[in-house]
């Protein structure tokens, strides 16, 4: 587990004993290259391929032959060209400067590459992931002579207006601080501490490296205990996510996966957002890049980009780097979690990641599993989601952090029985099933309320009742019952027509319609509807359910459902979501008055 240290040591040992040794390419097919003369290499070691020095990673070893997946376009690569070893696994660079940056799947900073290489990503473009020239004000949090262990905070820099970036003792190290820098301006490569480990005096800078495929260690895994609020009514009320939880959002094209992911990025109450565009559209990334710096976070008042890291490996960028993008993202998430933050990670779309695995696996001529996916698909998915969670952190003090993961899934033909959806559902605790029919009617978010579920409902329910309102669970259950019943009634109508329905059923249909159109439907592009806090959600529910009980009473006194349907209050319900904070009070008051007035309706004879 102590990979960091072992890695460093290995690099030194091997270089010393074996000297620089290169392999030779013997075969090239797409993103997969084979080389010989690679004896002594390690699985997942990072290498430089060919005369162009393309970045690659060893994925199969057999005798002195290595199979390498290459993270850049391989056109022009020729047998006979060298493969140079780096003696390091594929790793990311961690330290101040991550926030606000957009990286590709192997952590190349895209804005830098743009400045250096122009509008198109040419092969061999590279730039350091973190800015070496920027000065940060370092505040020491420990003194020299202190005994410290892995995970301890020894200093802090202000990375952005929203994020204090703690400098931690890297995993695998402990000892006494021989030296710590004074408060002052430093670049990230400056030595800010010297750690006496007993064996050696180790200089620490603000940069760490971490192999992306290894989870960063924690002290203990804990169960989620509170909801991760999203401001999306159907999610928070019916299918809640938890801090440290996992969710999947499968749906056919155009059903709203990306919009939901972006809505969550904007509104969840997590402190750090990692957004991975994995094999999706370039224009969507441009949109995020344009919107997020101007979008104010309602809690801090600062731009969202001041607490976000973006990974963009679009569908036309190299497929092997797409495979890596998900690991790059989750490793960065773990790094911020280790500082004690609540991190939310969105991966859009995990299907493209799985397809990247399939594509590479196909080139390796591995034995295909279901629908051509490799047999290890399910274990890779599980390993990834396993890196989410609420945890107690290494280091002294009782610090906690969490990573919540929301993965989009893009099933071919919208058919949820395919391997990626099925394997994902076996792992995640929340399932938001997107429905093409709802999307066709422009009922957004098109989350199907009959198919979706959340295993966090119990813990969320407790939280709502404790913090927001006492009858939340009852209203939620009633809502689910109404929606279920509506579905049954629709079946009946399809068979025998609507005229046979008794008034009580007609009222139920009216209730369901109000819930669907005025509560569950939420328009992401409206200034106010885009986000509904828990207090307002509760207020809306309360207003709707008060009306429901008045309506039932009215029905008993002989008032018809078609009369109730024509009441102006029904229209007011539809305006609750889009009401601005100023309009809110008058609107809810008028709803209350109108609801009360139902009492006075007289039966027309």
């Amino acid at each position, binding site marked *: 587990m102590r990979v960091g240290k072992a890695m460093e040591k290995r690099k030194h040992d091997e270089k010393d004993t074996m000297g620089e040794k290169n392999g030779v390419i013997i075969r090239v097919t797409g993103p997969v290259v084979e080389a010989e003369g690679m004896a002594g290499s390690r699985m997942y070691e990072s290498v430089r391929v060919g005369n162009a020095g393309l970045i690659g990673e060893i994925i199969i070893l057999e005798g002195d032959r290595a199979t390498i997946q290459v993270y850049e376009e391989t056109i*022009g690569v020729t047998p006979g060209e060298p493969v140079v070893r780096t003696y390091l696994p594929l790793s990311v660079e961690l330290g101040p400067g991550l926030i606000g940056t957009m990286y590709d799947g192997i952590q190349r900073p895209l804005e830098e590459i743009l400045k250096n290489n122009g509008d198109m990503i040419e092969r061999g473009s590279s730039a350091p992931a973190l800015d070496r020239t920027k000065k940060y004000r370092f505040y020491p949090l420990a003194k020299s002579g202190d005994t410290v262990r892995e995970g301890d905070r020894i200093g802090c820099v202000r990375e952005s207006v929203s994020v204090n970036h703690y400098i931690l003792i890297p995993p695998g190290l402990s000892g006494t601080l021989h030296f710590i820098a004074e408060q002052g301006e430093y670049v990230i490569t400056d030595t800010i501490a010297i750690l006496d480990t007993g064996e050696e005096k180790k200089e620490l800078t603000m940069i760490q490296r971490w192999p992306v495929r290894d989870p960063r260690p924690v002290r203990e895994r804990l169960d989620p205990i509170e909801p991760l609020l999203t401001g999306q009514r159907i999610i928070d009320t019916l299918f809640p996510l938890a801090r440290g939880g996992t969710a999947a959002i499968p749906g056919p094209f155009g059903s709203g996966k990306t919009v939901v992911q972006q809505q969550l990025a904007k509104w969840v109450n997590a402190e750090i957002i990692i957004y991975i565009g994995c094999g999706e559209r370039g224009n969507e990334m441009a949109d995020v890049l344009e919107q997020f710096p101007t979008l104010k976070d309602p809690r801090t008042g600062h731009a969202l980009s001041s607490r976000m890291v973006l990974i963009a490996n679009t569908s036309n960028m190299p497929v092997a780097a797409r495979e890596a993008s998900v690991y790059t993202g989750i490793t960065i998430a773990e790094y911020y979690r280790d500082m004690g933050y609540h991190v939310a990670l969105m991966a859009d779309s995990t299907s493209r990641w799985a397809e990247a695995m399939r594509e590479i696996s196909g080139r390796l001529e591995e034995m295909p599993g279901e629908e051509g996916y490799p047999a290890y698909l399910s274990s890779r998915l599980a390993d990834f989601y396993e890196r989410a969670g609420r945890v107690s952190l290494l280091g002294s003090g009782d610090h906690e952090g969490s990573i919540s993961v929301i993965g989009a899934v893009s099933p071919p033909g919208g058919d949820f029985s395919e391997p990626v959806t099925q394997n994902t559902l076996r792992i995640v605790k929340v399932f938001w099933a997107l429905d093409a029919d709802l999307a066709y009617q422009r009922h957004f978010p098109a989350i199907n309320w009959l198919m979706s579920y959340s295993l966090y409902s119990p813990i969320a329910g407790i939280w709502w009742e404790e913090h927001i309102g006492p009858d939340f669970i009852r209203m939620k259950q009633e809502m689910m019952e109404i929606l279920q019943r509506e579905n049954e009634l629709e079946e009946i109508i399809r068979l025998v027509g609507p005229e046979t329905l008794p008034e009580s059923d007609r009222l139920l249909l009216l209730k369901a319609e109000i819930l669907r159109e005025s509560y569950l439907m939420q328009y992401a592009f409206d200034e106010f509807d885009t986000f509904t806090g828990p207090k307002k959600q509760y207020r809306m529910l309360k207003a709707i359910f008060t009306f429901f009980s008045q309506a039932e009473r009215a029905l008993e006194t002989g008032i018809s459902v078609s009369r109730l349907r024509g009441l102006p209050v029904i229209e007011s319900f539809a305006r609750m979501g889009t009401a601005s904070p100023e309009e809110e009070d008058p609107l809810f008051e008028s709803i209350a008055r109108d609801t009360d007035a139902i009492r006075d309706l007289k039966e027309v004879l």
Partner: protein
Amino acid sequence: MTDLRFRTYTGVSKVVGPLMVLDGVEGIGYGEIAEITLPGGEVRIGQVLETTTTRAMVQVFRGTRDLDTEKTQVRFRGEPMKISLSSDMLGRTFDGSARPIDGGGPVIPECIRDIYGSPINPAAREHPRDSIQTGISSIDGMNTLVRGQKLPIFSGAGLPHNLLASQIARQAKVTGQAEKFAVVFAAMGITYEESAFFIREFEESGALERTVLFLNLADDPAIERIITPRLALTTAEYLAFDKGMHVLVVLTDLTNYCEALREIAAAREEVPGRRGYPGYIYTDLASLYERAGRIRGREGSITQIPILTMPDDDITHPVPDLTGYITEGQIVLSRDLHRKGIYPPVDVLPCLSRLMQGGIGPGRTRADHAEVKNQLYSAYARGIRLKSLVAVMGEEGLTSLDRLYIRFCDRFENDFIRQASYEDRSFDDTLTLAWDLLSILPKAELKRISPDFIKMYYHGEEILECKGP
């Protein structure tokens, strides 16, 4: 580059389908171009799909017919496939391998580019926002096209997708702007007749001299279809990003393109994915579609209208399915509407324009546009649902409100969707028409429109309003 690369080899060890294998070669690069001289002297172009120390596998674009294993000569060029580009290509016609077929001379290159291009850095992209008025209500009103968008037409055999595509090409304009525009047209496996139709349309609208045509027709070699769209898109990128033009790229038919990919995969005995298409078809299609867009600080743009026919009208077929997952929406044509005699037979419910949101609204089209669109969608969906009910059990059980929805639905199809192939409606015309239709419904039903807009535009009668006692 070593001399080895220019070595010419005589003899081929194996020919399978569109592929040939050479043994005893040395230093052949992945993806490089091979010139293949047939025993009869004909020269064809191929590309290396796989290379080892001594062996190269080459796909031959104009097919392997007449290749032999003894006398065929292969010269490796040591570089990937390239195309000569020039603004003089406007008004010219080329075959699917970019050779002139209009009797004009060769293109005098202003520059030469790799046809696979390089991905646009996502950080360089500008989010497209300029809406294009196509003059077609079902598109402009419900699924607005934006400059720099990729918006495919999902069609079926025998549906009027060509007529629609040519109407879009003819009528497309960005209001208030007269800019340099161009059309790049790539045919992949369509019939002579279909291609002649497009050429005539371009000619009549006067667009022909601003059009570059690449034609791989039904009787041209299938494998060539793999490079035809790339030649077209490389040309489009040159015109857009080097010459500052707004380029509309029409690619048709992508289903034929995917067939060619499938053929290569089968010849290589790759593990097939869904319905026999290779697993990397998503990535491959993305490498075409993602070449649409705008780049910050550059004037031009590439707007793509790929056309594809859905086998069996099945939208879940891999070609439309994967396309929909990559493009920024889709225009779907319906056989039902076509049978009813409605042109353009746009089935609006499954249609989508993902870039519409940023391209409409105050200062762009009109402030009420987004809300009107949402209301039309929900009303039309409800009307369609009711009509399917009526089909089963007649109109008896319907309420008077239901009847209004049905009336709305019929008028929507007949007045809003239906228009003549030369009818060019402005955004304003389309929205006014929309309000005429929405005014069929009671005001209280317009829940997706804010009261201010209702006050401004609604002009219906309040037949259904139920007052208290």
